[in-house]
């Protein structure tokens, strides 16, 4: 019963959800919520596949009881099940599913997240020697290079790097906007977020959910940072900084680097749409929470129902008292058994 439902859910999440979320206009009006929903969808899909793997090995109720025990910080007692050829085959399949997911995520972390981190740290170490302080702003590192470049580094000593080429193009308000944008990246842990989606996209290539999430989250973190910069300065200042830096770029078509939706960002800043209504925000946040809770709820809700129907309250109290023999609970237990 649970397995076909979960399989359907996984298929919807992997193939239909990315289409719907991509088409949804609201993510651009509330980029931070959008990021939350995309991440929740990815984690939910991975958790649901893991759950299917676990269900092949142990029954639904056992998984549910295990989660409840974990939540209550009690020891997990997996029910013993009789071993048959079929159950062994299911065990192997379930362990296989879990192993494939673990191995792919580890592989992607080793090939994406670690090398990127190593390169960034090496670069930051070089910039500590090459970079110069700005005469008036102590929160940026200036590098002597004519090409306009502005970026941040999430290393232990967080850095916002601005090239001399970029400094030459920006007036003080625009520089404020650019720095506010980069600080929003650092404060919002955007490196961590984009690393998660990049790892998942690498771990499970060709699955629309993960490739779309990586792409969209990358756009949305820029929009979230733009919004933050626009609040500290003005939307027009951020747009002006974007356009001036873009106009000052040496075209580099050979490298095939498309800016992350620069045109869309400028349009969004110059013609802002209505902010999302409070109700819509709550709805989106609730949706993200539901996505995260669903894979956990599938096994735990039946287990809780099972507990409630098969175990009278006194028995549960006895169980709790046995695990945590506290005086008040014991007294309550005695009281309960008297009646």
């Amino acid at each position: 019963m649970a397995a076909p439902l979960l399989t359907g859910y996984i298929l919807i999440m992997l193939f239909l959800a990315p289409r719907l979320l991509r088409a949804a206009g609201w993510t651009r009006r509330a980029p931070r919520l959008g990021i939350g929903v995309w991440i929740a969808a990815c984690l939910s899909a991975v958790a649901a596949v893991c759950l299917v793997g676990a269900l092949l090995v142990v029954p639904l109720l056992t998984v549910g009881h295990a989660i409840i025990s974990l939540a209550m910080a009690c020891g997990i007692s997996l029910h013993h099940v009789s071993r048959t050829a079929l159950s062994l085959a299911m065990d192997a399949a379930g362990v296989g599913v879990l192993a494939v997911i673990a191995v792919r995520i580890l592989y992607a972390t080793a090939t994406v997240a670690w090398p990127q981190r190593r390169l960034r740290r090496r670069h930051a170490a070089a910039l500590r020697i090459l970079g110069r302080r700005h005469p008036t702003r102590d929160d940026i590192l200036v590098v002597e290079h004519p090409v306009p470049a502005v970026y941040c580094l999430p290393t232990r000593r967080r850095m916002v790097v601005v090239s001399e080429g970029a400094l030459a193009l920006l007036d003080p308000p625009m520089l404020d906007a650019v720095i506010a944008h980069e600080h929003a990246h650092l404060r919002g842990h955007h490196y961590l977020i984009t690393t998660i989606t990049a790892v998942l996209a690498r771990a499970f290539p060709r699955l629309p959910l993960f490739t779309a999430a990586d792409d969209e989250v990358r756009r949305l973190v820029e929009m979230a940072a733009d919004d933050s910069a626009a609040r500290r300065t003005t939307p027009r200042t951020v747009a002006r900084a974007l356009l001036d830096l873009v106009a000052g770029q040496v075209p580099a078509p050979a490298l095939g680097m498309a800016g992350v939706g620069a045109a869309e960002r400028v349009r969004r800043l110059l013609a802002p749409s209505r902010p999302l209504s409070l109700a819509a925000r709550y709805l989106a946040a609730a949706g993200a929470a539901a996505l995260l809770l669903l894979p956990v709820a599938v096994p735990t809700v039946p287990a809780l129902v099972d507990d409630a129907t098969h175990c009278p309250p006194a028995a549960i109290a006895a169980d709790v008292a046995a695990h945590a023999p506290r005086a008040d609970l014991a007294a309550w237990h005695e009281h309960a058994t008297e009646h």
Partner: protein
Amino acid sequence: MELFGDLEAEVMDRMWARVEPATVRDILEELQQARPIAYTTVMTVMDRLFQKGWLTRERVGRGYVYATTLTRSEYTARQLNEVLSGTDNRGMALLHFVRSMDAAEAEALGDALRWRAQEKGTD
């Protein structure tokens, strides 16, 4: 480790500022004009800079003579090339304020860029 970070930058500043190679004592004397500093500290820092490839050295007598391998701007260009050539998902995967863009993106921004040029004229 972090202790030497700023000192490394300072030593490299001195090395780049001078034309000819330098011994530890040369740099020590320059640094001591600003504040007291131990010979062994400067020696350690210059040895680390050699290990990291920032400096080359040649044995002369009992000590070493150090020289820079690249000029400051050559080093900076090398670092920035790595930054500018990386794509969104490979290399360092940096979060840039804005990257250079392809033709389609530039086309899409055409109106906005013209608006900006006009506005600049009236600033």
